[in-house]
């Protein structure tokens, strides 16, 4: 791996020495990641990233700890330290998971020019950083199509966490998907201003279902927990309501007894992206300085198995849209105009 014991003497200016050295031990590389405040079990991208790291590690017979590992951050001041700690432990690739880590990856990567980094959901323009972006809007588009085809009330809800670009990509794609099916379907969009206020998610979903929506797509992290709770309660009371999950397959969250309120989930292939970078590095082709964008075409974005909630004929229509996007016939907008 890369020497970091002598990092005091490392030049701060960006050099591009990163790539060459990494290939020293091609047969055996180690990988580690820094989570954001969510932790490796946030049922979201931290979790999928960790699953990626783990599966790569296990596949290559690595030990947890030396071969692969993660560090959790308790606040955004911790990112730098955690990244640094992993670099010092000589991991060959250190992943920063989440857009919030951009600043820290940038900073550490420009100091530790011998180390290799990867960042998810943001672009860091440095030769020793591999950037991964997702076209969330494409997945959200399909979710919008599914919702529009499935709704019986012609009203659909979208609950966002904070008004930040990632979430707005979800909103934009979702709206576009719905509109592609039927312009007249109303999409009720609400931002709760937080990713951790389940009571707001619940009350917002309550209002949406009350005012006639029967499907709610959430891109709101922990706030989305409240959306699920509300839907489950309604399902129990006999209402036919649905939730579309986000980031990971949220089927489990929707389970009540034998029923389930999860229509489908928009999947973000963080796991796959993480593994791909690791494998490339293993092969001596660490994609430093590059930005890999995963969309429907790359299978980096998609819809989760609906487990029968979405009937076959609807699935075919969704597939159809998917194909059009992959073929470039439809370009999904990234922002709401």
């Amino acid at each position, binding site marked *: 791996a890369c020497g970091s014991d002598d990092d005091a003497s490392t030049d701060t200016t960006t050099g591009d020495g990163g790539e060459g050295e990494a290939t020293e031990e091609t047969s055996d590389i180690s990988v580690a990641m820094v989570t954001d405040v969510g932790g490796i079990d946030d049922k979201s991208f931290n979790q999928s990233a960790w699953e990626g790291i783990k599966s790569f590690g296990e596949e290559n017979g690595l030990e947890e700890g030396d071969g692969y590992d993660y560090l959790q951050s308790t606040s955004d001041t911790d990112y730098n330290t955690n990244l640094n700690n992993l670099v010092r432990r000589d991991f060959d690739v250190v992943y920063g998971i989440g857009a919030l880590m951009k600043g820290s990856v940038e900073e550490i990567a420009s100091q530790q020019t011998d180390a290799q980094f990867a960042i998810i959901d943001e672009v860091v323009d440095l030769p020793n950083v591999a950037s991964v972006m997702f076209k969330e809007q494409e997945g959200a588009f399909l979710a919008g199509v599914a919702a529009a085809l499935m709704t019986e009330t012609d009203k659909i809800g979208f609950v966002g966490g904070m008004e930040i670009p990632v979430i707005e990509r979800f909103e934009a794609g979702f709206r576009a998907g719905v509109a592609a099916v039927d312009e007249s379907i109303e999409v009720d969009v609400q931002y709760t201003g937080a990713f951790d206020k389940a009571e707001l998610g619940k009350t917002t979903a309550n*209002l949406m279902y009350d005012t006639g929506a029967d499907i709610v797509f959430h891109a709101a992290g922990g706030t989305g927990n409240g959306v699920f709770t509300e839907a489950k309660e309604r399902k129990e009371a006999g209402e036919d309501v649905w939730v579309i999950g986000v980031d990971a397959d949220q089927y489990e969250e929707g389970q009540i007894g034998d029923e389930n309120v999860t229509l489908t989930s928009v999947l973000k292939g963080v796991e796959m992206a993480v593994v791909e970078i690791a494998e490339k590095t293993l092969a001596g082709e660490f994609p430093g300085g590059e930005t890999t964008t995963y969309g429907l075409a790359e299978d980096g974005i998609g819809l989760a198995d609906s487990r029968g909630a979405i009937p076959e004929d609807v699935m075919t229509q969704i597939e159809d849209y998917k194909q059009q996007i992959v073929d470039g016939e439809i370009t999904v907008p990234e922002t709401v105009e």
Partner: protein
Amino acid sequence: MSFLDVLYFIIPSAIFYAAPLILVAIGGVFSERSGVVNIGLEGLMVIGAFTGIVFNLFFADTFGGATPWVALIAAMVAALLLSLLHAVASISFRADQVVSGVAINLLAIALSLYLVKKIFDKGQTDFITERFGRADVPLLSEIPFIGPLFFQSVYLTSFFAIGVAVLAWFIIYKTPFGLRLRSVGEHPMAADTMGINVTKMRYTAVMISGALAGIGGAVYAQTITSDFGHATINGQGFMALAAMIFGKWHPLGAMGAALFFGLAQSLSIAGSSIPIISEIPNVFLLILPYVLTILALAGFIGKANAPKANGKPYIKGER
């Protein structure tokens, strides 16, 4: 949305939002009425939420539909035990009560997350399967107007919270225990000369606050989040503290304040569905509940009178 629709949405949502706050704020009323400041409410809620969820997960098979209720008892006991720590510090050890409360808050979240990691080997628990359900109250829900406002698809826990508020009012203002409790918070030395055991009263009060805060936390977690993680309880304890002060340390006042917070909160959510209001930038709706609270407070001229001996350790013979 028509005005009536807005009302039918806002009122039940307010009650739903307020329920856990009411319980916790009343816990605070007991503690502070006895003269012990309790800003550890947040931490006590955390322990309650944690215990409630963990208990629920482990015993859902044993207790079935009754699990959430039994979990409340577990949460109550756990938070009560933690509140004892606050009691020992602030009553027996004459600690600064604010400091001790801060310690309780830090300890609760650290301890419960530590335990979650130990037990589940991850940062949050699984989802519970047995939750508090909503139901229509038979007969009452049929009443026009009143029915949909208060009795249709409601949580039993909301009635429970309101019941606790009324019961607390009764205990504090109608029973000898309440009289003694208040006397200890106003003038402990006077109470002492009347043969009242100040220490015992204060311990009891702090333990009641722990019990209620624990229940409040467990109600919150089992009706709203369905799991427990680092962000499950984040600030509700402080909102309860605010409700208690806003309500002038009176159980029904605290209930009113909590309902007011709920009202403001659901108003801000309903706002975006009301045509004209939805034109306003979202941030104004987001801050609406807090601004409303401040305005309401400034409008309620006349200061809130805290119990006189609140926050002061009782030392025999000191003047």
